[in-house]
């Protein structure tokens, strides 16, 4: 019956008779190939080594480079790093003579992890959009108290205060916003007098319900799924795969780390940073990537960051600026004393700087997240084509 045959073409990688990369080998058509199956060609070995060096260099730069860790520009470099690694990995995968079937399992395993990363990309994209919404509230503050307003009046102060209060509520993680909200609302009640009754409903005004992923989706669980069963290849596996198990393992970890760091930095549905992350010291890039991991974990444990919606540097700056300004405005009486005004102006100036950084950085960041998404899709499709094209 043809039924069986058709199903055959849609079977998972591992169960198909043909191995991944078979196409490539067919083209290479090396009659000696069978004899050299386990032999690692010197040129290929150089290529594999170069990949290890490259990954190590990239992460070394990330760990040491000029950008502050977890800043928008750092996250952008993180994504750039991923794109470079992914591209090199692709070249190795498709350019290498095919080792035995063990590779199929390893590679299909990688693509399964990569698919999970796609949902992380979408969730992060939402998160970036959320940051963009926050920026609108910062803009209100800047419009109200910015330098082009020569005189800071009562109305502008209240307007700014309300925008700041709205922002604080938005910046609370949705799941714990309920509890903190009642207290917050009291201090940000937009009007001391008549309208306190309606401020309870405030939080919904600017809260976007939009998430690309389903409601039950959890970034934390997704990360754990990506990290599941990543193990450094054993000696015989390296030999049996003509060394290719090493770049696959490398890419698994790069993928895991990059997705984890993204989720750490950017607001996401059900964030959580508990993953098992360990790299044998022998890998060239182990030190850099482990140190980055440790530094981010450390950051997440800091008292003032523990409950943050995202570890992005700019979020922290916003939090600091916003709370500082709120405290300032709370003590202000109109007409303002000159030194108070200077202080407020300065606070707004700081806020404007973060706002500018976000304005400059968020759009490219979102484009990069999208690029990572598309690149994963494309390389996965390439893999499937390889499998299905020849049967």
């Amino acid at each position, binding site marked *: *019956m043809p039924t069986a045959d*058709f199903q055959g073409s849609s079977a998972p990688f591992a169960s198909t008779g043909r191995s991944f990369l078979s196409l490539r080998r067919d083209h290479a058509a090396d009659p000696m190939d069978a004899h050299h199956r386990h032999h690692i060609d010197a040129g290929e070995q150089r290529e594999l080594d170069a990949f290890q060096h490259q990954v190590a260099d990239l992460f070394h730069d990330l760990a040491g480079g000029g950008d502050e860790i977890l800043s928008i520009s750092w996250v952008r470099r993180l994504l750039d790093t991923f794109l470079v690694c992914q591209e090199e990995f692709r070249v190795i995968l498709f350019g290498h003579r095919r080792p035995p079937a063990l590779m199929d399992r390893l590679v299909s395993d990688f693509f399964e992890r990569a698919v999970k990363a796609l949902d992380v990309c979408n969730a992060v994209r939402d998160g970036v959009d959320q940051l963009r919404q926050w920026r609108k509230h910062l803009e*209100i503050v800047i419009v109200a108290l910015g330098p082009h307003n020569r*005189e800071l*009046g*009562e*109305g502008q102060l209240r307007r700014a205060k309300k925008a700041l209060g709205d922002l604080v509520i938005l910046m609370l993680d949705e799941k714990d916003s309920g509890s903190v909200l009642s207290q917050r609302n009291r201090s940000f009640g937009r009007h001391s007098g008549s309208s306190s009754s309606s401020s309870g409903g405030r939080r919904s*005004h600017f809260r976007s319900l939009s998430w690309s992923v389903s409601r039950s989706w959890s970034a934390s669980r997704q990360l754990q799924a990506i990290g599941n069963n990543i193990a450094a290849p054993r000696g015989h596996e390296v030999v049996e795969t003509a060394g290719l198990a090493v770049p696959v393992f490398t890419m698994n970890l790069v993928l895991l780390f990059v997705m984890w760091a993204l989720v750490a930095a950017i607001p996401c549905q059900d964030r959580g940073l508990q993953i098992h992350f360990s790299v044998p010291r022998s890998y060239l890039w182990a030190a850099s990537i482990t140190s980055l991991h440790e530094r981010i974990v450390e950051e997440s444990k800091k008292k003032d960051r523990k409950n943050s919606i995202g570890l992005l540097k700019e979020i922290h700056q916003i939090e600091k600026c916003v709370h500082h300004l709120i405290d300032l405005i709370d003590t202000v009486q109109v007409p303002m004393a000159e030194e108070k005004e200077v202080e407020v102006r300065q606070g707004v100036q700081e806020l404007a700087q973060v706002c500018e950084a976000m304005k400059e950085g968020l759009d490219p960041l979102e*484009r990069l997240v999208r690029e990572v998404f598309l690149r994963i*899709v494309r390389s996965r499709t390439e893999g499937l084509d390889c499998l299905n094209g020849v049967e």
Partner: protein
Amino acid sequence: MEGNQPRFPHKSSSFTASRDEKHHEIDRNLSLGSLKLEQYGKRETHGVDTIEEEETEEKPIAGNAEETQASFFIISEDIDLFLTVLLSLEEDGRYENREPPDIPEPTVERFVTLLEKEIGRYESGEAKWCSDNDEFPLLDAIGRVSKLTAAVTRFSSDTKYNQAMNRAGGVLHHAMCFLEDEFHSLLQDPRAKQDAGNSSLKAKRQPSFSLNHEPDRRVRPSSESTSAESRPPYPPETVERLHGIADAMISAGYDIECCQLFAIARHNAFEAGLPSLGFDKVSIEDVLKMAWESLESEIATWIKAFRHTITASFAAERDLCEAVFAGRPNVSDRLFRRFASDATVQLITFAEAVAMTKRAAEKLFKVLDIYEALSDVMPAVDALLPEGAEQDESSIIADPKEEIASVRCRLGEAAVGIFCDLESSIKADSSKTPVPGGAVHPLTRYVTNYLKYACEYKNTLEQVFKEHKHSEKTSSNAEDGEAAGGGGNDRNGSNGEGHNPFAAQLMEAMNLLHSNLESKSRLYKDQALCNIFLMNNGRYIAKKVKGSPEIHQLLGQTWYRKQSSELRQYHKNYQRETWSRVLACLRDDGLQAKGSVAKPVLKERFKSFNAMIEETHKAQSSWVVSDEQLQSELRVSVSAVVVPAYRSFLGRFSQYLDPGRQTEKYIKFGPDDLENLIDELFDGNPSSTGSKRRP
């Protein structure tokens, strides 16, 4: 509620009757915009005096609605006058070096207090700001306090002005918060929810393409009930109020708040409406894991939700944006684009995920359905989002057109991949068991039906292959396929488009099927049965092709003629294989020696004729020709050759057998019996031999 509510007149003009002459005059002056300042200077003081008098004389109490109303309007007039003065100062550029006029503090204070009180009444629930009569003056007053605040801020270095700025600015902010709440709650209008609940578009599950039974007509969801007419999300009164509020907020400089509120409320409404369209958000991983049967129905639902969103919801949303932000095309355009972009991104992920699912033949049609849906909405999207609109800071927002095009491209590639996989599937079918009775092989059924259904998507597939086949390194047969496609291309000449990669691919599949069947036919040891098998399968294919104008057109007349002539050849081969031996028994030569009939030879002839007939009947009545026409053609052609020959043979030679026992022994069949036996061939019924024999 109406009783204790101040009854502000509808329009200020309707109030003129109760005004005194003086204000009336100023009114006109104002509207003419040619105010003489010197003249005004006197009046101003006079006006303020009047009000101060009023205030001392009769303090407006909250209960005294008419009084409040009256004084509120007088105060408004005075504020307007004051504003005019300040404005003209500004226009003259004189305020730089000139002392501002005295500020009418009590007027300002009374004005803002009244406004504040009024808002307070709405906020506390004491009164409801909704009756049409009241609406205009409130927004009007808010507009006035906004102008007032801006105007006095210019002179804020003056202590009194500074105080006024703080006072008016505070009330303005209060008013803005009130409007924000109103705006928000109006946007949560119940009609939206109600609407969504009613128009549940949850699609019925569509029958899937199945291999087991032969769906003879596939019902294509072409005439989807895309109710392009979507009810506007809010009743006109609400839209009118939203417009009023938006106008007041934006005029007061609260545009960011207003736009954010609107954008988020509308986006949330869209999100909330998705389930009522039957669409639940799923992550990519979920889609990839989903069983095909479930995914298939999800796809059908998604297509409806998508079409509905783009054709109906988008249009309604654009109208809404234009109505609420009337007179501000930049704002409404930006908000609509943002909505369209967010909505598209939300929806398109699903299609993106489907394009990523593992390829399988049966998925082709759903993939093409989505592809068509994406193609179909493009004109609507183009019309709704014309190019060249100014892009502001939010230029990042994904362009729905690009998003759709990109996913469409991936679906196209997936469709090409799936269709090309058919080749490998045909090649891979190498089952070694012949189908009993030479009947139509399941592979033939499957491939032919599959191609026939695929050709119902002919136009789409042609487009898909033209646009997305670029990098296909599908197979070594690509060139052969193209060459073969040339045969079918004759009808393409009229279209003026030379190369048709889809037709070529189709031809390639047909050729592969043909050669596969030929090799399968060799599994039959009996050459006659081998030809019956080829005839059966060839006939099946030809009939399906003839029944489908699309596939017929794609394969072309040349292919069809070739197929027909092959069928005739199989028929001839069969006749020769089976019946030429039988007919040989009925030939004259060898029977007559020296002018007389050699009886033993004759007996032998009859014996072997009878044996062959019995043997053939026994074997071939179990063969299968399920196509009735073919079955009857075969029988008729056999009868036409065999029966007359037998009849004539009997006529010439039966006399040589002794009547009685001998005749009975050697002439087992009459011509009619023979015809009946032939009519029992190809029944696929092996047990018929004994039972139906001779009456």
